[in-house]
């Protein structure tokens, strides 16, 4: 047994955990990461990254379907589901190895196993019920992440009723698919399977799809999905899933109407729960509230020296939020005086469906609910030269400003490549820019980013190309 005593031990090698460990190592702390499965966590192995590989395949498929629009023709276009999945797994593997390299480079000890907190800065690690060893650290950071939520009557079985995990590695495509939940995870799978030709039905309990997004964006996206042939039921609950040999009959209830729907497979995407069990949290003063560890604004739990970051502390369940919390928490521990608590309104969110959706900050409705006077700008993709040249004339960029101070409160986008654009508004928000700086920024022509400029101009009645 090598070292057992560290400055910082991070439990969980996902994006929050491994980034926290790297930052701790950079700041001169002797650091270890405990990971029970794969470095990179869900994000890298079973989440963000492999789904982006799948969605890229779907996008290529979509373009192939429309080759004629670009002056090409091709015959016998076909795909092999296995190869699409294979590529996705290869991408995940490559990146997971990359994280292993980063750990070595930063001289971070990686401990293979599951951790149990013993209280007082101590923990023990076991692998397959065999003890690995006891370890101690001045600070312990819990970054154990989360997993798919199940509900009574809506339990995954891995065969007919999938979670993201099975949905990511289908052996063959089902003919029909029911996606329960229209958050980012549900919609991305719906979009992927629809683009490969599967009959997709989406059921959402709230009154719109992508319910955290701005209402206009939700409405725009819903229309686009329906145009692609997706069936969408909002304000609808799935009451029962009856399993047949190779299909599932779902009972959908909308108000007092009820209907049956038979599909080959079901994907459950009804939220996630924090991984807080079997890790000795009850031996500490840390509190858990509805499967999430309770923290203060510096990610400190009730137990001195015990911190928690990422999905296990609550929404938004985003890798980049976890990474940022990891860095912030470690810098705080190190006593750096430039640390500020995380500002939730500066966290961008991206959904990689087709059309893509991206946003940062307050929706128009939330800004108004806060009692703010707002100025709202819109710009449609159809008014943008690059969008038309790309053959992507459908989309919308919406901006919300505080009428009094000119603060950019929120930005909401739907359309091609918006996930790559949103960072521009995130930078403006983080640097506390106002409409003035955004208006006087020179956006290159011809780019999709010009729409970001125009939307700001429109909020102040100055849009040029509409």
């Amino acid at each position: 047994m090598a070292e057992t005593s560290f400055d910082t031990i991070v439990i969980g090698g996902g994006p929050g955990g491994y980034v926290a460990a790297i930052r701790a190592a950079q700041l001169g702390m002797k650091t270890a990461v405990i990971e029970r499965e794969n470095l990179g966590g869900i994000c890298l192995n079973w989440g963000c990254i492999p789904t982006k590989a799948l969605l890229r395949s779907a996008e290529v498929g979509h373009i192939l379907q429309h080759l004629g629009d670009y002056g090409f023709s091709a015959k016998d276009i076909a795909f092999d589901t296995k190869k699409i999945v294979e590529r996705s797994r290869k991408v995940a593997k490559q990146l997971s190895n990359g994280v292993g390299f980063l750990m070595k480079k930063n001289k971070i000890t990686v401990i293979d196993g599951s951790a149990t907190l013993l209280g007082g800065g101590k923990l023990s690690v076991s692998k397959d019920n065999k003890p690995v060893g006891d370890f101690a650290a001045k600070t312990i950071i819990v970054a154990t992440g989360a997993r798919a939520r199940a509900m009574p009557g809506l339990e995954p079985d891995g065969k007919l009723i999938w979670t993201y995990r099975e949905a990511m590695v289908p052996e063959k495509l089902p003919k029909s698919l029911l996606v329960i939940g229209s958050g980012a995870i549900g919609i991305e799978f719906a979009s992927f399977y629809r683009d490969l030709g599967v009959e997709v039905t989406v059921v959402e309990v709230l009154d719109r799809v992508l319910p955290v997004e701005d209402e206009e964006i939700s409405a725009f996206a819903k229309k686009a999905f329906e145009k692609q042939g997706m069936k969408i039921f909002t304000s609808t609950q799935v009451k029962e899933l009856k399993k047949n040999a190779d299909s599932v009959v779902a009972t959908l209830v909308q108000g007092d109407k009820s209907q049956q729907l038979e599909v080959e497979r079901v994907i459950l995407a009804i939220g996630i729960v924090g991984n807080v069990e079997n890790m000795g949290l009850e031996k500490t003063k840390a509190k858990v509230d509805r499967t999430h560890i309770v923290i203060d604004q510096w990610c400190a739990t009730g137990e001195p020296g015990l911190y928690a970051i990422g999905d296990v502390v609550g929404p938004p369940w985003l890798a980049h939020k976890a990474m940022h919390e990891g860095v912030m928490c470690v810098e705080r521990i190190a006593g750096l005086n430039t640390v500020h608590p995380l500002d939730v309104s500066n966290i961008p969110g991206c959904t990689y469906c087709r059309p893509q959706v991206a946003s940062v900050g307050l929706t128009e409705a939330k800004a108004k609910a806060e009692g703010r006077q707002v100025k709202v700008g819109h710009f449609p993709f159809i008014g943008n030269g690059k969008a038309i040249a790309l053959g992507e004339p459908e989309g919308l960029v919406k901006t919300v400003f505080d009428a009094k101070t000119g603060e950019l409160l929120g930005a909401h986008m739907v359309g091609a490549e918006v996930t790559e654009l949103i960072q521009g508004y995130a930078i403006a928000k983080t640097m506390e820019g106002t409409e003035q700086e955004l208006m006087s920024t020179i956006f290159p022509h011809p780019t999709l980013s010009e729409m970001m400029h125009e939307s700001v101009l429109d909020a102040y009645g100055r849009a040029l190309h509409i």
Partner: protein
Amino acid sequence: MPIELLMPALSPTMTEGNLAKWHKKEGDAVKAGDVIAEIETDKATMEFEAVDEGTLGKILVPEGAQGVKVNQPIAVLLEEGEDKSALANVKPAAAPAAPKPAASPQAAAPPVKTAASPPPAAAPAPPRAPAPAANGHAPGARVFASPLARRLAEQGKIDLAAVRGSGPHGRIIRHDIEAALKGGGAPRAAAPVQARAPLVPMPAPSGGGGITRYSRDQVHALAGGTPFTDIPITGMRRVIANRLAESEVVPHYFLTVDCELDALLKARADINDALGVKTSVNDFVIKATALALRKVPMVNASWSEDAILKWEEVHVSVAVALPEGLITPIIKNADKKAIALISSEMRELAERAKAGKLKLEEFQGGTISVSNLGMYGTRQFTAVINPPQSAIIAVGAGDKRPVVKNDQLAVATVMSCTGTFDHRVVDGALGAQFMAAFKKLIEAPGALLI
């Protein structure tokens, strides 16, 4: 009431100037920020901007007038609702040097236009002394603030120069302005973070500025709910608070010397008698402080994270109490000035300080401070360093005390003086050398008189 526009002092040395050009005619509307006139000094031509709004009622000093004294009325601004009848009482200009005979435009050499470059030190002097720059914002230097912070400060009428920035590289961010608007700055812990209840009080970060900033409500709670009256925090009060709180990071130490004053008092009486002046003990203390700095020049220095800045000139800041706070006018190059000159300068500075008429450069840029509470009977005290200076001398009352001379008990007038030093710059032995030099100069005041 019509507002008199006075000839502005556009540079620290300006005493008079020429009225090169009027940009507004009588009857023109004037907004704050409008260029009203161009003023020519010995160094440059500069634009004179309006501070108030109104209508230019009457021009008192014609275009081309030479040698117009600073603070002489040059025009009258009518406020909203006032008409020309309000001008009845306005006297025409006390004739300045006659304007040049109306020369043809070609003949009059156009003033060299350097309006674009700002005046070297001070902008047109506002009526009240501007708040001294706090937090190490050098006067006239760029204040780093986020665009949103700037706008919030403008809307909330907060002077950015008086705000401590908590953003990257000390940049002022929204949080800082909101804290200033709330008064005093809420502690970080109160920053809104959604749906996250703070569970345990966090220890202050070891590397950070650990000054606890309480909100009004927190202070009220800590005091157990004693009834109170709100006294608004003025700009000056905020600057005092910020600057002195800043000095918390300075590792202080204190050295006290007892100075026998009898020789000095004798010299002072002789000077006052012979020259008919009214020098004070404090004038001698200022001179002694300045000369002691020359004897031990490493004390005349300031800490920075890059280097210690050893100043080549000696400027003594002297604390002057005001009803609303205090200010530290400066005797520049005090080491080179005669006591009588220090005395007259000090009197004049103190008067203008009390009238709120000090210019920025008159109370910023000292290299050491003197604080004298002797007149209140305080025997000995310690003073708080005025960053970035490295020393301050706290001067107590001179009173008769028993002393031992030649093994005999005797009576002498003794004044206890305590130096506070920044240990990052001035080590103990150095501080002691300085205090010894100071004591020697006070006790044998001949050297102060050269």
